[in-house]
Structure formats: C-alpha cells, structure tokens
C-alpha cells in the first residue's frame, strides 16, 4: 500500500500536481471528446424515440448527464474543501475554487435543457418539477460559493471560507432535495414526472451511459486544466514557477 500513499502525497505538492494534472488533462480530454461525439450522434440519430414523448425525449442525453455531473461536482467540491481545511493543502483549495464555475455551468445546462424539454412535454417553459427546482437551488449554492470565494482579498481565507460553505451546503443538499421532492408530491398530483421513466430499453440507455461517461471525463479534464493554471498563479513567486517561466515552458 506504500505506493498509494506516496502517490496520494505527491498530488499534494504543487509542482508534482502541475505535472501530473497535465498528463491527466490530455488523457481525460482525449477520452471525453470521442465519447461525447459518439454519444450525441447515437442519441440524436440512432436511439429510438420515446413512444409517449416522441423525439423531445432525446434531450435526456444532455439533461441527465449535466444534472449528474452538477450534483457530483458539488460533492467533489465539498470533499476538496474538507481536505483543504483539515490538511491546509493549497492544491485542494485551488481545486475547490475551480470546481464551482464548471459545476455552476453544468447546473445551468441541466436547468436550460430541463425547461426546454418541459415545453413540448407539458406546454410550459418553466415547470416547478421537483428535479428542476432542486437544480435551481443547487445553482444558487454554486453561485454562493463562487461569490464568497471572490469576495476575499486574501486567497487563503477565500479558500477556507468557500470550503466551509461547501461543507455546510453538502450537508444540506439531501435535506433540500428531500424537502423539494416532498413539497412537489404535496402540491402536484402524481402526473408523468420528468425523472421517473419506465425502465428504459438497452437501446435507449446505452447512449445515455456513453454521454454520462463523456460528461464526467470532460468535467475532470476541464477541472484539472483550470486548477493547473490557477495553481501557477497562486505559486507565481515560488522557484518552480519562476524556472518554468524562465524556460518559457508555460
């Protein structure tokens, strides 16, 4: 188990993180782009339409992956915050701060595609469906973390404050989701719900799986790419960054 511990500790050191994340970014992006292309084509052209909703069902191939990435993005952000708070790691702070913008973008994407999907299905652009409402609250939580992070002049304080907010947020996310689901079932007779679909045949969820993997790979690649640059910025006075700049290796 020794190599796992050293591998983990290496990620905590900024120069090593910069180097490793470079390789991982290229790898993940190399994985993400083909997955997304194949998934999109498959979902748009080859997957069967839904017998009830018709072709508008194809929006699921973006809505569900975006929503999944948005939620797990917040959980990743909170765990990076926890690591940052407990071990005071600059790398964890940087990952946390760069997680929020992508997560917010994915949540916005889930909201936009959800409301577009609602129009042909229910005839209204905005529907207070349980899932879309909790997405809206999740977007607010993301904006809160981003707003708080940028409000501090001192980067370290910004990192730790955002970490605390992310942790409090992640504790509340299940409660918020439960209360919104409960609220939705209270006020809305159990009509067809956007999320609860009958078990999908293989032809339908296979492209969905491809798209979900594509979205996660894309999220990982962009997160690491952003964090690398932010880390360079945060460590611009250190020797290893100066030498990189001197060799024009950035």
């Amino acid at each position, binding site marked *: 188990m020794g190599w796992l511990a050293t591998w983990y500790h290496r990620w905590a050191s900024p120069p090593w993180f910069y180097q490793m994340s470079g390789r991982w970014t290229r790898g993940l992006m190399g994985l993400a782009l083909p997955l997304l292309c194949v998934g999109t084509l498959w979902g748009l052209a*080859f997957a069967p339409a839904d017998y009830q909703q018709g*072709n508008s069902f194809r*929006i699921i191939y973006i809505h569900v992956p975006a929503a999944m990435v948005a939620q797990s993005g917040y959980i990743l952000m909170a765990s990076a915050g926890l690591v940052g708070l407990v071990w005071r790691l600059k790398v964890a702070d940087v990952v946390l701060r760069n997680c929020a913008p992508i997560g917010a973008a994915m949540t916005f994407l889930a909201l936009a595609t959800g409301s577009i999907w609602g129009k042909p299905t229910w005839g209204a652009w905005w529907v207070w469906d349980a899932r879309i409402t909790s997405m809206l609250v999740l977007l607010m939580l993301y904006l809160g973390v981003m707003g708080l992070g940028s409000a501090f002049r001192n980067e370290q304080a910004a990192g730790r404050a955002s970490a605390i907010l992310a942790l409090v947020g992640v504790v509340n996310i299940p409660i918020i989701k439960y209360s919104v689901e409960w609220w939705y079932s209270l006020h809305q007779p159990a009509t067809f719900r956007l999320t609860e679909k009958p078990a999908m045949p293989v032809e339908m*969820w*296979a492209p969905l799986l491809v798209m979900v993997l594509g979205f996660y790979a894309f999220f990982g690649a962009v997160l690491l*790419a952003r964090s*690398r640059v932010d880390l360079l910025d945060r460590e611009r006075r250190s020797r290893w960054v100066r030498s990189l700049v001197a060799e024009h290796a950035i």
Partner: protein
Amino acid sequence: MIASAAVDGFDPWSQNMQFDSFSTWLQMGGHGGYVFAAYGIAFAVLVYQGLAPLRKRRALRRRLMASLEGER
C-alpha cells in the same frame, strides 16, 4: 442490471438509423427545434468551459512574462 442486459444480444453497432432522410432528422416529428436548441446550448456551454483554461493560461502567461521582463 446493466451487465446482464448487455448480454442478451444487444449489438451497439447494428443500431439502425431512425430517420430516413436528413430533412426528417431535422424535423424530428416537430420536436427538432427543441432538441437542437437544447443541444446547441449544451455545445455552447461545453465549448465555453472547455476553452476557459486556455484563456486563463494565456492571460497568466502575459502577466508572468511581464513580471519576468520587469525583474530583468
């Protein structure tokens, strides 16, 4: 659940094309507008997020080079 379903003869490469012509694909039975709007927004968001690191890197490189010149 996924593993078992995949076994019973599902062959991803033998999926047939759902639409017989390009125009019917665009129409998508009247839902084309919504579907392509959604995919369009998704494309825009993904491209914007994908390029963000490159933009940040270029700005940082300019700043670091400038401070390097400043020191010399």
